[in-house]
């Protein structure tokens, strides 16, 4: 793939919260759907995404080539049912980083604007 045919990542920003949740989760390793939800819950920033919302976003990101399906294999939990796992692609990682950078810039701007107290985050 030549450079000029690559998607300009900036055009996809900002990401929806659920999309960023997914990329953030997958950045640390492969996950199945419920794993992503648990990760989001553990972050404690508001309610975790609904299952339907999550899977629609997974499909979207998959169509855009940001994530891909990994092997189907048993989950780590006690039961031995098989699960669909997802992993992030290099493109998806770039997207996640771009979004993170955007959020960081936003945070900085918020602090400069006096919306955040020093050391709040």
């Amino acid at each position: 793939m030549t450079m000029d045919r690559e998607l300009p990542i900036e055009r996809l920003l900002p990401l929806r919260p659920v999309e960023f949740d997914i990329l953030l989760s997958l950045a640390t390793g492969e996950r199945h759907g419920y794993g992503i939800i648990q990760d989001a819950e553990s972050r404690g920033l508001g309610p975790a995404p609904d299952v339907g919302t999550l899977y629609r976003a997974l499909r979207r990101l998959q169509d855009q080539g940001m994530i891909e399906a990994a092997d189907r294999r048993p989950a780590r939990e006690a039961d031995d049912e098989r699960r669909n796992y997802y992993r992030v692609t290099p493109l998806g990682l770039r997207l996640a980083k771009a979004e993170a950078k955007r959020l960081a810039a936003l945070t900085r701007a918020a602090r400069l604007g006096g919306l955040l107290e020093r050391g709040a985050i």
Partner: protein
Amino acid sequence: MSDERWMRASARWARLLLHLYPRDFRDEMGMGVVETYLDHCRTAVRRGGLLALCGVWAKAFVDSLWNGVAERLRPAVSWRRSGDWGLDAQRAVRRLVRTPLFAVAMLGTLTVGLGAFATVYAVVDRVLLAPLPYDRPDDLHFVWRNYKWVPFERGWVGGTDVAALQAAGGAIEGAVGLRTERMTMTHGTDGEPAEVPIMLSTPNLFRVLGVQLARGRGFAPNEGGPGRPPVIVLSDNLWRDRFGADPSVIGSEVRLDGRPFTVIGVAQPGFRFKRHASEGPPESADAYITFEMDLATTSPNSGAFAVLVRARAGTTAERFGAAVGAVGAMIDRRDFRSRGLELYPVGAKGDLVARVRPALIVLGAAGAFLVLVLAVNLATLLLARVAQREREFAISRALGANHVAVARATLFEGGLLGLVGGVGGTLVAVWGTRALVAIAPADLPRREAIGVDWRIATVVIAVGAALGVVAALLPAMWATRTRLMSLLSNANVRGGGGHGRMRRAMVVVQVALSLVLLTTGGLVVRSFERLLRANPGFDATGVLTMRIPVSSARYQTPAQSTALHERLEREIAALPGVTAIGAASALPLTAGVDQAGIQLPGAPGNTGDKEHDGPLADYIPARGRFFEALGIRLVAGRLFAPRLEPGVNEVLIDRTLAEEFYPSGSPIGARINIDGDSGTVIGVIEHARQYDIHKDGRYQVYIRNEYNGYRSLSYAIKANRSPTDLTAEVRAAVHRVDPQLAIANLRAMEEVVDDSLRQQRLSAVLIAAFSLGALSLAAMGLFGVVSAAVNRRRHEIAVRLALGADHASVRRLLLREGAGLVLGGVLLGVPGIYLAGRAVAGALVGVSPFDATTVGAVAAGLVVVALAACYIPARRVTGIEPAQAFREE
């Protein structure tokens, strides 16, 4: 229940909820979704038991409902976000040009359908929707008298009422007294005298209407009443037809009934003020003059004027109605000894269109229905096209084409076709409206204003484009929805994919819509046929009619005019072929007669109820052999004696009056009081309908014209020759008697009957055309579905044949499928028939809206046509040879 069973139930619930999502999503992500829900459920059971599980189930339902719908709508949303419109348009054009047959079929359907729609829309818009071309038209009202003590709710007002309304002030800004009269107009030295309808009014007519004249001026406030200067305003039509559009006409002299008038103005070309009639259609005039009398000094008893009243700007309908009612109450006390006279206003426009409104609403609804059928048909065609190209889509998608582009292309194609079809439809409508106006009833309000203008063209083209896009929406959704895998597998199996179901559903809808439209059409046509067969109480065949206006200036006494009519009768009766001739104040079905209150003292049918015993009857002075000429049957007694017998006031009454007041005995010889005058009933004749061809009107009394001396009479001439052959000789005969006489409405009585049926004929023709159009569209749809099924199932059919099925049984299989669709459509259409029947009931005559014969016949006809549309493509099965079909694969 164990946890395990709860989990199984949860899985079933999750799988059920999956159906809220579109199929491709379900195929691809369904397993993951169910697993994740189960994970949720497990956690919930562990933490909170069954109650928490129920919570998860409920949440899953809400979640699936929301996201399922959102996912179904996604193609539309993503289409809006991306794409190169120009390129898409270019591609759509190129594709259409490459398949001319498809494009022509689509455009033909659209052009005809939209043309029909545009024609109806133009009529409905102009007649029902567009405001009258006057200043603040909604503030204009006609006011009528309601005589509470006789059943006469819509009477002319008296001149005194007009004066009272003018003086009222308050919510009433102005009031115009109006009357139309036919007068003989002559001007210059040459030119045949002609009878011209003249509008007599108070001088404020043009001011109250708020219209400007094209030339000259309107009436000054002092140009009315006794001793007024004789001034006249011409209509644009008259000015062009009789004065050759001569700009120097202002100041010249014309004669009306021999009296000179000075032309002071010419109205605008579009100005055709209509005064509504108490009975019958509204009347317009070709010239305008003012009253020479003072309306305030006329007899309050003579209701002879129409009155147009303008409400003060900003007055509510209630306040205006109350103001008019207050004037009415005052008049009732002053002039009618509080017998209960009421005055009430009716909006001018509503009053003018009231007669045609039911028919137009039915037509408008039929037009809208046709457009619906068209949209469904269009969608079916586009879907079929998408289906044909699914392999192409699959491959281009495999090669990386954006799936949204496919949807966009389909939408563009639809929109473009709709746009071009709209332009075509507009052109059709330009001619359509002209043809329509030609067959429209002469009394269709604002008939002259009907036509296609830019506004209507814009609406029609926009409707066309919108129709195309809407019709393309379903196929477009389907095209994006279908994922690569299913497309490829579908295309390979050729077994009828998801679009097959959609197409079948559309055909069912089409059949249902056509059934409703066809039933309505059948009812209207049947009702029209009833009208044609109705017996109006007279025989129009071989009767020539004309009106001879006789001016009081030239024939001053009743004796003089009677002598004139006797000479006319003698002269015409002497023409070869003429078997009977007579005249009356008006011809049947023209709603032109006067009314009078009558009493039959001592008749057995009297009930003692004042209203019943003193009815209002049509009062018809007649002379000569009028009844023989029109074939009006004598039921009992005798007709008028050939010679006037002194001392006997001969009166003929109609059958309905005789039946009501003499249910058993004979009325011959009975005394009858007509507006105070007394007469003797000498005979009973058939009721010749004056108003509607399909139903009896008021009671009728005929008196000898000699008593009353109506000057201008309508003649009926019965001959054993064709009426059209006779016209020249009749004209010559009249001019032999008096070359100054004008001859008006020289035409066959059959034309008079035809004229009274114009409105119904128009509805019947249009609705029949619409419903046949809908039927052919539905048949095309069915044909397409079945022939596509044969194409797509070639392989399957070949297998069936190879395994021993014969052609006939396979054909039956396909026919069964088609019949199922037809049956579904018919069942779906039944509630529609009921609703449509209730809607058109007002426009039907002599036919129940749920007439079993009509509905049954129409449904049967539809089923036959639909099955034929299935059978023809199904026959192609015969051409399938298993061996060859497999080789093709």
